[in-house]
């Protein structure tokens, strides 16, 4: 994955001002930076949800702008807003996702619910879920159809220890399949156990790492400061 000079403008504000980076298949990158530095925007652009105002990129050999349709099927996301329909039950939410994928899934709805520990709540409406449960439901979607490009936005928020372990399992599985993982987070300590490198964003640009190959734990700790 290569991104070159990605910039995005919202109205009169630049959220990104020319971010460039590359990520190899099988790697896990932490995207770090203070609030408003453009982390979420970067993930949304890479996921093809947003078109960059400027810049270009290639993901798995596909042009980010021209072939967004081809990239889309390989992308899995876990965002703040979980993309869960409150009026549907947990099972119906996953059933909807399965049908939108055309029925081809790696894990069944029940298996996915089982793994994220929501079997007991399968028939409950998602509107009544706690935010942790809602995000577990979104994780179940990632389990049903493992993506090649996994994008996690603040994945540690509202998860308990078991939930975080589940997130890390999914991250490791994706990397093991030669997928790419980008994790936007403030929590350097937690992410340190899975990440291979850090993309540090400041004012909408990537700050170059002065010495690549440093101990990821140290880098991560610095990022938190």
């Amino acid at each position: 994955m290569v991104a070159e000079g990605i910039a995005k403008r919202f109205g009169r504000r630049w959220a990104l001002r020319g971010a460039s980076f590359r990520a190899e298949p099988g790697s896990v990158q932490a995207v770090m930076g203070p609030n408003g530095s453009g982390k979420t925007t970067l993930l949304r652009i890479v996921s093809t949800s947003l078109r960059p105002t400027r810049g270009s990129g290639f993901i798995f050999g596909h042009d980010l702008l021209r072939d967004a349709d081809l990239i889309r099927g390989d992308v899995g996301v876990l965002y703040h807003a979980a993309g869960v329909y409150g009026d549907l039950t947990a099972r119906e939410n996953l059933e909807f996702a399965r049908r939108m994928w055309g029925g081809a899934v790696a894990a069944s709805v029940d298996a996915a619910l089982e793994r994220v520990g929501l079997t007991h709540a399968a028939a409950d409406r998602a509107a009544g879920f706690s935010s942790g449960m809602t995000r577990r439901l979104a994780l179940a979607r990632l389990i049903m159809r493992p993506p090649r490009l996994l994008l996690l936005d603040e994945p540690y928020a509202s998860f308990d220890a078991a939930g975080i372990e589940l997130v890390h399992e999914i991250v490791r599985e994706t990397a093991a399949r030669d997928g790419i993982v980008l994790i936007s987070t403030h929590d350097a300590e937690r992410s340190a156990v899975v990440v291979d490198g850090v993309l540090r964003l400041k004012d909408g640009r990537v700050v170059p790492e002065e010495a690549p190959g440093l101990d990821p734990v140290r880098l991560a700790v610095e990022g938190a400061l």
Partner: protein
Amino acid sequence: MSERIDQRRAGVERAPAWLVVASAVALAAVIGAQIFGFRTSPPDMAMGDLQKIMYVHVPAAWNAFLAFFVVFWASVVYLWRRTERADLLAASAAEVGAVFTGLTLLLGSIWGRPTWGVWWTWDARLTSTAVLFIIFVGYLALRSFTDDPDRRGRWSAAVGIFGALNVPIVYMSVRWWRTLHQVQSTPETLSPAYRAALRLNGLAFLLLLIVFIAWRYRAARIERRAELVAEEAALQGSGLHV
């Protein structure tokens, strides 16, 4: 600070010579054609000098339709190629077209009062012109409510295309619905005394339309360029705001 200066510099850029000349020619053509119309055409049998309204009303209507055709065409090009120029051209043509349509409606109303006895009547041509006017007012409103240039371009292109597609259907449906308005005048039904003047005015207004669109398009380009310059400044500098 530097943004302001750049904007001003962009603003004082001189208009191209052809546009200035063409504007002068268009203005002279409209005045000349109007004088020609008043001089040469005798008062109409039925409505007397009121017929002179035709020399503005009809050319404005023709050219408004032409402007909306430009909107349609430019919108299709924008959705196809995503070239910003097409979006700006569509917006310029829509603005000028809306003004011409408004003029047509206003004069038509003034003309209708003494001849039909009413300011407004629910016939095919009036109603479809009014609907067309509202559609493109909606188009302009949508543009003003949308900040992101990319989204603004895509949305207004869709509205422009739908609006243009709707025009013939509106016309057909209201034509069956009410058929009070006379059938379109053709050279055969129009006395030769009026024909030349009407054609001359049609051409003069066409020139006016082109010049108006060109000026609006130029202004839109300058606005965009100023925006881009400011964008560039914000990109280079430390502030996140344009």
